[in-house]
């Protein structure tokens, strides 16, 4: 099951650039939450702070509190542990090109030391079914490489890989921006189904996509979170003029 995420006074820097400034919000468990905003506004930095990826950059640092359930991820857990609890899907599908579909899906589990063949088989089937890819690849699991799939299939395989380690939170950074409309709608259907099991945070430039998949939406601008509210409110009657200007395309 997913867990709620509580963010308090989160600040992040790249070198001397203050890229996230005092972010406070509560992301409810088992909901999809969308983050929108212009390029460079800090939304991707924000999700990278939720799995401690931000700090992997030598010039980057973050301060503040991020609680997943009862766990303060910056105090009570190691980055490795956090990344097992928080899966991530990126803009472009990133299969391990030399691995089969099967090995791609279980790569995280193997990294965590799982070797039991029956458990691995079950995990591959369960994860690919959850990612709505099983029927399309079940006959070629070990024959085909992950990189031989179409872009949309690769992205669903990456989602299967992310959920194979049974995380509580799924972070998606523009997961459908490189996909055609059919693949995009499959990913969106998937988000709808997956949120019963995971807490989903999705960064998107596609406002209609945010409106379609997320219960709540946060609008970031210049490193600050300008507005966080129900998606319905954000897209029909936002409270802040800057949010309205952005979503109606009147920025600039």
């Amino acid at each position, binding site marked *: 099951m997913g867990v709620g995420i509580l963010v308090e006074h989160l600040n992040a820097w790249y070198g001397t650039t203050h890229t996230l400034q005092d972010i406070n919000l509560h992301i409810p468990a088992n909901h999809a939450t969308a983050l929108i905003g212009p390029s460079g506004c800090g939304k991707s930095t924000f999700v990278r702070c939720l799995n401690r990826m931000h700090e992997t950059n030598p010039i980057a640092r973050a301060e503040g509190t991020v609680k997943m359930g009862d766990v303060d991820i910056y105090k009570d857990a190691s980055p490795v542990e956090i990344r097992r609890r928080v899966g991530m899907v990126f803009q472009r599908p990133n299969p391990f090109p030399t691995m089969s579909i099967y090995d791609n899906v279980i790569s995280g589990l193997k990294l965590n030391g799982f070797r039991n063949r029956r458990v691995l088989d079950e995990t591959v089937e369960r994860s690919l079914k959850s990612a709505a890819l099983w029927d399309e690849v079940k006959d070629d699991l070990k024959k085909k490489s992950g990189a031989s799939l179409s872009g949309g299939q690769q992205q669903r395989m990456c989602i299967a890989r992310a959920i194979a380690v049974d995380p509580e939170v799924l972070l998606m950074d523009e997961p459908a921006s490189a996909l055609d409309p059919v693949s995009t709608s499959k990913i969106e259907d998937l988000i709808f189904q997956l949120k019963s099991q995971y807490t989903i945070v999705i960064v998107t430039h596609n*406002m*209609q996509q945010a409106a379609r998949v997320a219960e709540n939406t946060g609008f970031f601008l210049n490193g600050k979170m300008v507005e966080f509210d129900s998606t319905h409110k954000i897209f*029909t009657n936002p409270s802040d003029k800057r949010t309205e200007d952005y979503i*109606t395309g009147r*920025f600039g």
Partner: protein
Amino acid sequence: MATRIKFQQNLDELKERLLVMAGMAEQAIQRSIEAYNTRDMNLCELVFRSEPAINRLEREIDQLALDLLAMEQPMAVDLRFILSVIRINADLERVGDQGVNIAVRVREMGAFANIDLPVDIPKLASLSSAMIRRALQAFIEADAEMAETVLKLDDQVDEMNDAAFHALSSLIKEKPDLTPQSLNALIISRNLERVGDHATNIAEDVIFWVRGADVRHYSSSAQG
């Protein structure tokens, strides 16, 4: 720097066309009431002839709004504006229809003597037309407060229509030979009351567009 220039031009065009539609609908009411006052059947003809143009414009405005919804995927205030335009468009077409209905009644009344009836149709017409004009002014100026004042006028129009109903019902009982004129006047009164209702709808749509608040049926639901 301005953005979405084409979209903004299309929104402006939508607004302009709706105002043309409003002018035509208002004119239909004015002419039909003038025909009532003067029994000028030529004015009734003008009202009948204007109806196809109003209907055509209604379809054009709907098509433009539909295109913008499909092609521009508007959000927030833009989405509310287009939704309001679609609703106001339908109300204005119905206002035009009320003008036609009144003209039909006036034409029937032309076959009878022009007698004094216990109903002040010109006053009722003046009030309901003022409601339409104010609702449209609120639309032009995006003024929700002005739109709210329209809602308050509707009670007056309803009261005048109710009074006309009682007075004309009594007249029919007392003088059955005046039944045709009385019934026609009663229907005209009802038509004008409906014009007030359409003005109320338009005002509510302006409030929705400007504030994002749905105030429809508020008074009726508050009364239970």
